[in-house]
C-alpha cells in the first residue's frame, strides 16, 4: 500500500510540474526577454514578513532595491519602500496557450519594486521567469522526443518481430549501427550537418527530431523481443488455429503486450532526452538566445567569474534534478508493476 501512495505522489508531482511550465506565461512574473540593466546580477529578492521596524505583516512583501553608488553589484534594500506581493496581478503581456493575449500573472509586485525570486543575469532578466519558460522547452522537448523515439521504435520493433526473415535481420542490423555509436557523439554528428543558427521554433523542432530519430534502437529491440516471444506463445498459435489473420493477432494479442513495456520505456527515455536537450542547448547547438532553455542558461554560469560570485546562476542546473528523480521513481514503480502482473496467481 505504501508503494501505491508513493507512486501516486510521484505521478501527481510530475503532472503538476508539467502543468506549471505549460502555463509559463501565467506563472512567471516577468517575460523571459525583459531586460533590466539597472538590476544586473541581482541576488534573489528577499521576501519579508517582518519589516525593518519589526512589525509583522500577513502579506509577504519586498523592498525596492537599488545599486549602491560606485559599486558593481552591491544592492541594498530601501526600508522606506515596501511593496506587497500581489496575486493574480497584471504584468508583462504574453500569449496564453500561444494564442490569447493576456496580462494576468499568478503573482508579482508593482513597479519600481522587483520580485526577482531567483535573481537576475547579466542583462537583468529574471531568472525565475526564465527557468519557468526554459522548463517549458526542456521538459516538453524531452517528452516529445521520447514519444517520437517510441513511435519509431514500436513500429520498427513490431514489424521486425512480426515479419521475421530478412526484414527482421535488416532492421536489427541497422538498429545495431545506431546503437554502436556513443549516443552523444551520434547526436552531435547529426546536428553537425544541420544549419547552426535557427529561430527558436525551428530549433525546438530540430532538437526534438534529432534526439527522437536517433534513439529508436533500444525501444525497437525491446519491442521486437516482446513480439517475438509473443508469437511463440501457444495462445497465438491457437488463435491462428481458429483462423485468425495476422492483423487480428497483432491487434488483439501482440500489441497489448507491448503497452506496459512502452510505458516503462517512456519513463526511462524522457529524463535522458531532457538531458540531451539541455546539453545541446548548453553547447550552443540547441535552443538559442534569447529564448531560454535550461541548457543555454547554464552556459552563462560556465564563466568562472559568474560561477564564483553569483551562486544563483547555477540554479538552472539544479532544477532538472528533482524532475529526473521523479521520472526514475516512476520508471522503477512501472517496472515492478510489470513484473508482478505476469505471475500466475491461481496456483500456490
Amino acid at each position, binding site marked *: 500500500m505504501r508503494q501505491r501512495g508513493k507512486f501516486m505522489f510521484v505521478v501527481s508531482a510530475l503532472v503538476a510540474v508539467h502543468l506549471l511550465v505549460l502555463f509559463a506565461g501565467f506563472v512567471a512574473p516577468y517575460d523571459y526577454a525583459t531586460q533590466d540593466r539597472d538590476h544586473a546580477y541581482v541576488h534573489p529578492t528577499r521576501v519579508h514578513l517582518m519589516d525593518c521596524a519589526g512589525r509583522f505583516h500577513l502579506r509577504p512583501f519586498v523592498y525596492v532595491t537599488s545599486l549602491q553608488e560606485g559599486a558593481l553589484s552591491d544592492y541594498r534594500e530601501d526600508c522606506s519602500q515596501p511593496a506587497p506581493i500581489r496575486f493574480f496581478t497584471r504584468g508583462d503581456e504574453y500569449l496564453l496557450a500561444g494564442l490569447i493575449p493576456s496580462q494576468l500573472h499568478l503573482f508579482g509586485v508593482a513597479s519600481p519594486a522587483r520580485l526577482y525570486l531567483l535573481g537576475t543575469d547579466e542583462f537583468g532578466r529574471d531568472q525565475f521567469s526564465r527557468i519557468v519558460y526554459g522548463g517549458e522547452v526542456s521538459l516538453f522537448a524531452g517528452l516529445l522526443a521520447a514519444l517520437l523515439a517510441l513511435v519509431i521504435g514500436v513500429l520498427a520493433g513490431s514489424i521486425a518481430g512480426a515479419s521475421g526473415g530478412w526484414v527482421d535481420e535488416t532492421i536489427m542490423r541497422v538498429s545495431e549501427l545506431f546503437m554502436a555509436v556513443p549516443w552523444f557523439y551520434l547526436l552531435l554528428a547529426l546536428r553537425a550537418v544541420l544549419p547552426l543558427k535557427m529561430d527558436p521554433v525551428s530549433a525546438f523542432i530540430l532538437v526534438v527530431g534529432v534526439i527522437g530519430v536517433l534513439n529508436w534502437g533500444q525501444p525497437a529491440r525491446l519491442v521486437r523481443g516482446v513480439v517475438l516471444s509473443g508469437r511463440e506463445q*501457444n*495462445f497465438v498459435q491457437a488463435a491462428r*488455429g*481458429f483462423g485468425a489473420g495476422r492483423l487480428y493477432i497483432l491487434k488483439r494479442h501482440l500489441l497489448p503486450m507491448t503497452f506496459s513495456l512502452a510505458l516503462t520505456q517512456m519513463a526511462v527515455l524522457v529524463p535522458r532526452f531532457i538531458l540531451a536537450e539541455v546539453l545541446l542547448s548548453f553547447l550552443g547547438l540547441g535552443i538559442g538566445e534569447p529564448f531560454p532553455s535550461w541548457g543555454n542558461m547554464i552556459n552563462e554560469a560556465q564563466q568562472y567569474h559568474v560561477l564564483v560570485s553569483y551562486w544563483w546562476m547555477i540554479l538552472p542546473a539544479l532544477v532538472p534534478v528533482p524532475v529526473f528523480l521523479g521520472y526514475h521513481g516512476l520508471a522503477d514503480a512501472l517496472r515492478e508493476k510489470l513484473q508482478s502482473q505476469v505471475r500466475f496467481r491461481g*496456483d*500456490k
Partner: protein
Amino acid sequence: MNPGGRTLTSGIAASRPDGASPSAAALLRLADFSIDYLGSDGEVVSALRNVELEIREGEVLGVLGESGSGKSSLSNAILRLLPPNGRITSGRIEYRGKDLLALSQSELRQVRGAGIALISQEPALALNPVLTIGRQIIDVLRAHRRVSKEQAMEQTRAMLREIGFPDPDRISRAYPHQLSGGQRQRAAIAQSLICEPSLLVADEPLSSLDTITQAEILELLQKLKGELNLSMMFITHNAGVLSSLAERVAVIENGQMRACGTLDELSSLDDAYVRGLIFPEKDLGRVLVQPQEPNWSVTEEPFLRLRNVSKHFIQRHIFSRRKFAVQALQAIDFEIREGSTIAVIGRSGSGKTTLARCIAGFETPDSGEVSFAAEVANQSRGVVQLIFQDAGSALNPRFTAADAIAEPLVIARQASPDQRSQRVRQFMEEVGLDPSWASRIVIEFSGGQRQRIAIARALAASPRLLILDESLSGLDLPIQAQILGLLMDLQSRHGLTYLHITHDLNFLSRFADEVIVMDDGRIVERNTPAVLFQSTHPATRSLIEASERLHAPGLEVAQ
C-alpha cells in the same frame, strides 16, 4: 478392499532386509506446525495449519496432497528455507530431539546437508549452471567434513558411481547443461547424499521427468533406501509411487493433515477425498474391454487418414550452430474412425507431438497426405482443435475467461455479443466452471481450471476431432482423472473424436479404445489396451514396465 483391483502395498515388505519394524525413536517430529505467507497484495495466506508428523528411523513417510495443499512449504520449512515472505507462525520441528527452530545459524548449517537433505522438483534449477557437477558435490562435502581435495574427489567419484553413472570422471567434469534431465536429477541426489544424511526430504522429485526416467529414479531411491537405511519424506501427488516406497502415508488437504497411516489403512477409510487421492481412477468408469461404439451415427469412411506422412526438422546446436536434421516422422500410415478415442504413446522424441501438429495443421508434412472424410473436409476451419500441454501458455494471461472462450466465435465473426456471452456461459457450465467467474482473468484460475477453459474454448470452435497433446501431464493425478471424466462426458454430447498424445500410461485402460505406440518417428504397434499389455515389442514393453513400477493408475485389464 481396494476398488479397481489395484494392489498398492505389495512392494514394501520385500525391500526391508530383516523385515523388522522400524525403531520406535522418532527421527523427525513436527508438532502443531503452521506457516503463513504474505502475498504481494498484503493478504496473509495460511499455507499449513497445525500439522503433526512423525518419521521414524529407517522409515519412509509419504506426504500425499494436491497442488496448493501446502506440501512444498513443508519441505522448505523443515530446513528453514522459506522465501522472505513466508513465516513459521507456530509449532516445533524436532530432529533427533532438538528443536530446529531454536537453533542458531551455524548449528542449523550443520544439520543442513549432513543431517537432513533436500531434493527439489526441478533438478535443472537446483544445480548451479556455471559450476561443474563435481565441484558442486565437493563443496557440499567440504562444508561438513574435513577432507583433503583428493579424498573429496575420491568420495565424489564413489558417490556418482553408486548413483548409477558408469563414468564418474566425465560427469564430475561436466556442467549441468551438458546432462539430460534424468542425469541432472541423479546428480542432484548425489549432491544431497554425499554427506550421508539421516533424512532425505524429496519434494516431487519425479514430476519433471518422463515415465521411463521416473521409473529409473524411483528404483534408485528404493536401492538407496535399502543400502543406506535412509529415512525419507517423499512429497507427491501420485499415490502409486508411494506404494512401492513408503511405509506410512500422510494426507494433506488445504494445509491440514487429513489422515495418516499405511496405504492399506487409508484405502479402507470411509473418506472419499482420501480414496480419490489414492485411487484417482475410481470415478472414471469401468475398464474398457473393447472399443466403444459412438452413440451417434457415423460414416463407414475413415474419419482421419494419414498416408505415408514424413517430416524432418533442421535443428541447430545452441552454441556450435552446426545444423543437423532430425527425422521426426517416417512414413506414417494410419486411419481412425469417427467417435473413437485413440491414445498415442511413446517416449520423448518419438514424434508424437509432431504428428499432432501435422494433423492439426500447424506443420506441413514433407511428403504424404493427411486427409479427412469427405463430408468433414468440406467443413470450414476448426474441424481439428489442439489442446496444448501447458494451459498457462495456451491462454493469453491478460484475457478474461469469457474473452478466451469466445475467441473462436469472435474470429469467425459468428454470433452477436449477446449470443456469445450466452454460449460462453453454456460452455463454462459444461466443463464444470462456475459461469459467474467468466469475467475473471485467466491468471486467477488454477492449472486444472485453466485446462477446462482451454477445452471450453476448443468446444466453441465446433470441432469434430480434438487432439490433446500431453494436455494432462502437468496436472495432479486426481485432477487428471477429473478432466478425463469431463472429456468422456463431452464426447457423446458433441460428437467428438479424440486423439490423446501422452508419454505416460495413466488411466489408459479406462479411456482408450485403441493405443498407437510410436518410437523413433514410426508407428510400431496398434492395439486395444488389453492386447497391448501383453505385447512383446521392446518400445512398448519399456513403457509398460516403467508405468508398472510407478504403479500408474488405470493399467489394469478387466478379468
